[in-house]
């Protein structure tokens, strides 16, 4: 049984980098869904059970911030782990994401071992 993963990024390269980093960290994915923006991600979340969401902030149509705000308003964030992977460096916006319920934030470029640490901390017993 592996992780059910959703990777949200408008860059196909970054989506593959995330999937590759997870595999390198020993996290087996049972299913990997991808979305190019927050709107697509919300549709995936409505249709499929997902263990963990990795999302960029800066995306067309619906940003990661808007996606997180919608998930927070719908009460999803306490049970739906979201990790933000972004070039965003503004401390106030990162604090806002954490306050909304985002579990972790990693700056791009991130190291695979940093991603491994974050996921291991969220799932200390392995995939749910």
């Amino acid at each position, binding site marked *: 049984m592996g992780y059910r993963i959703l990777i949200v990024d*408008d*860059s*196909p*390269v*970054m989506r*593959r*980098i995330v999937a*590759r980093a997870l595999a390198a960290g020993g996290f087996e994915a049972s299913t990997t869904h991808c979305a190019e923006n927050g709107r697509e991600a919300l549709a995936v979340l409505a249709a499929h059970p997902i263990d963990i969401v990795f999302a960029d902030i*800066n*995306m*067309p149509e619906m940003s990661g911030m808007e996606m997180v705000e919608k998930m927070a308003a719908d009460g999803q964030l306490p049970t739906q782990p979201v990790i933000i992977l*972004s*070039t*965003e*460096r*503004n*401390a*106030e*916006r990162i604090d806002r994401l954490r306050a909304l319920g985002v579990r972790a934030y990693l*700056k*791009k*470029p991130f190291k695979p071992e940093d991603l491994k640490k974050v996921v291991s901390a969220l799932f200390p017993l392995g995939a749910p």
Partner: protein
Amino acid sequence: MSAALSPSLLLGTTSAILEDAAFFFSERTDTPLPWAGQLLEAKLSFIGPRKGTMRLVTTTAFGVELAANLLGLAPSDADAAAHARAAVGELLNMVCGAFVAEWFGADQVCQLGIPVVRAIPHPDDAPGDCSICLIADERHRVEVEIILDEVPRP
């Protein structure tokens, strides 16, 4: 904390991202390699305390190697060629994110646009407000520049 817009600031962030993200060692040069083959131009707008565009020009060959390094592929892999443009766009995204944070300071909000990458026959020679030319891994020419939308008031 903010810094002055300067080529050394642009060089520092670009070199660091090239090395950390894609394992390319780079150095600034005043005698650039001649352009060879098809070129890629990537642009990304930013709006913060200053408004403008970061522009990166390089060769498609560098884009292919960049994609290969980012994705753990051999440069000869067809997948690396298929992702060359997206890789250059993502490189610019990472460089610009790091650069504006250093330039404006992490306490300032700066909104980045979406990278736009296109093939160009030759680069636009119009100089930006701040520019650098790098050699990556002693083989690839990479130019990065900042073009401001407005001129600061005296």
